């Protein structure tokens, strides 16, 4: 950074509030789309894995491989096909959510006690009713744990998509690096962390209100 330059120029932040809130909203959108699409795909693949247990290892194998690809390389690889677009960003972001979400959905449902399933079947629940009324509610706590990890990971990764013209708060990080200007860099980095903390807290509240039974002792 330039010598003599203060770490944070508060007046720069004050004069850029509109852009900060716009980028924050963009960050929220990119994250939400990634998690929602990731959940849809993860539920579909989990359903297959639960019905055909033989397919669980290949499913986690492939999504596990996706998870290990460095994000920078993945976006660079996708640009020639899908361009500098939201689609490129989301393909990457969604890919990184799948392993965590699938593991938690399958693990959560497999973790439902066998005697609860046996009682449900023995009392005349259909397999579909068992899934919706017993297994999914009971797996909710584990599934939410996965959603929380996937969401925090995604919020961090969204900043990388600044390189392909998206990025939410990551835009400020890139901007700060290019100009050797610490204020926007900190706005992007600290903003992204604060955003993750707030969203995580909100998810905890949602989970608690959805699983009132887990709070009794």
């Amino acid at each position, binding site marked *: 950074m330039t010598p003599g330059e203060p770490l944070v120029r508060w007046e720069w932040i004050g004069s850029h509030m509109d852009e900060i809130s716009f980028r924050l909203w963009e960050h929220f959108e990119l994250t939400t789309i990634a998690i929602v699409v990731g959940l849809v795909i993860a539920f579909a693949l989990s359903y297959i894995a639960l019905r055909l247990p033989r397919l669980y290892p290949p499913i986690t194998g492939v999504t596990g491989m996706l998870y290990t690809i460095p994000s920078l390389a993945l976006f660079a690889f996708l640009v020639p096909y899908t361009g500098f677009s939201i689609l490129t960003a989301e393909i990457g972001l969604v890919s990184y959510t799948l392993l965590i979400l699938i593991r938690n959905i399958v693990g959560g449902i497999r973790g439902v006690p066998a005697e609860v399933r046996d009682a449900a079947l023995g009392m005349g629940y259909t397999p579909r009713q068992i899934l919706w009324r017993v297994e999914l509610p009971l797996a909710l706590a584990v599934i939410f744990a996965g959603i929380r990890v996937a969401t925090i990971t995604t919020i961090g990764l969204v900043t990388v998509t600044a390189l392909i013209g998206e990025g939410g708060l990551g835009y400020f990080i890139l901007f700060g690096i290019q100009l050797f200007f610490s204020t926007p860099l900190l706005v992007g980095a600290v903003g992204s962390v604060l955003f993750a903390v707030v969203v995580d807290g909100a998810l905890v509240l949602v989970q608690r209100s959805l699983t009132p039974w887990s709070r*009794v002792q």
Partner: protein
Amino acid sequence: MPRCHAGAMAERRGATVELREVTKRYGDTVAVDHLSLTAPAGRITVLIGPSGCGKTTSLRMVNRLIEPTSGQILIDGQNILQEDPTALRRRIGYVIQQVGLFPHRTIGQNVATVPVLLGWPDARIRARVDELLSLIGFDPARMRDRYPAQLSGGERQRVGVARAMAAEPPLMLMDEPFGAVDPIVRERLQNEFLQLQRAQGITVIFVTHDIDEAIKLGDRIAIMRTGKLVQFAPPAELLAHPADDFVARFVGSDRGLKRLALLTVGGAELDPPIDPSRLDGAPVLTPAMSLRDALAEMLASETQVGMVRDGANYLGVLTLSHIGKILRADDPK
């Protein structure tokens, strides 16, 4: 404790269950081998035997959690293998050892499970839930909205029984329902359950590996071994005439004592009354007392005999040789 079979059975709405030559094979293994037996309406039929004898498999074929390889199962004459399994299960109560309450539902919602599946109107469900919670000794207002995690093991087991009875099934299947609680709670749950079952007249098929529980609860006991029925008889007959060495060993070397618990002083032959002054220290027995309790009191006294009295009426004297005669009379060995 002497048993009263007919007394409390006001209304009989239990179903009769008949197994005809029922066989279940898993590959080369035969889990249940040509099992035929009839569980009479309104009675408790106990299936008992060592692990792997096929008792649980037999039970689970009655609500088609397991499909028989061959044979027929009839409930009130209807072949259940031609019925929709889901509809069948909704009219059969089902209780298992680990209870399997839904942890995410309140006690009230758990009890309401089958009525909700059957689409009962809300008001009827609410009334039935409160009725059942009262029947198992709960205060509905206090317990209805609690979650299973807030209950003790014994309380959960009671809720499991209430849930199985909710839609007034004519038949209940119970797989070691009291196996996971401590002996004191188990005894209380057994007594409560007997009362409930007698009052409601439900047919029960009950799996256990505990011979004392079988003798206490069973109107009829089916002893199984390697998938086959070895003996099917009322408890007293089982204890008096075990079909073979396996049954004799299974019911225990103290089967004589167990049988005495099922017989009363009133049914025993007595010596004519002797002047009480000559029987100083002899215990006073009543006709309703079990012979086992009478024996215990007689052995503890100096005289080794007991005076049998029915109120002011002095009926006679019970001696050890009378009890020995009863045991020998029925025993083939």
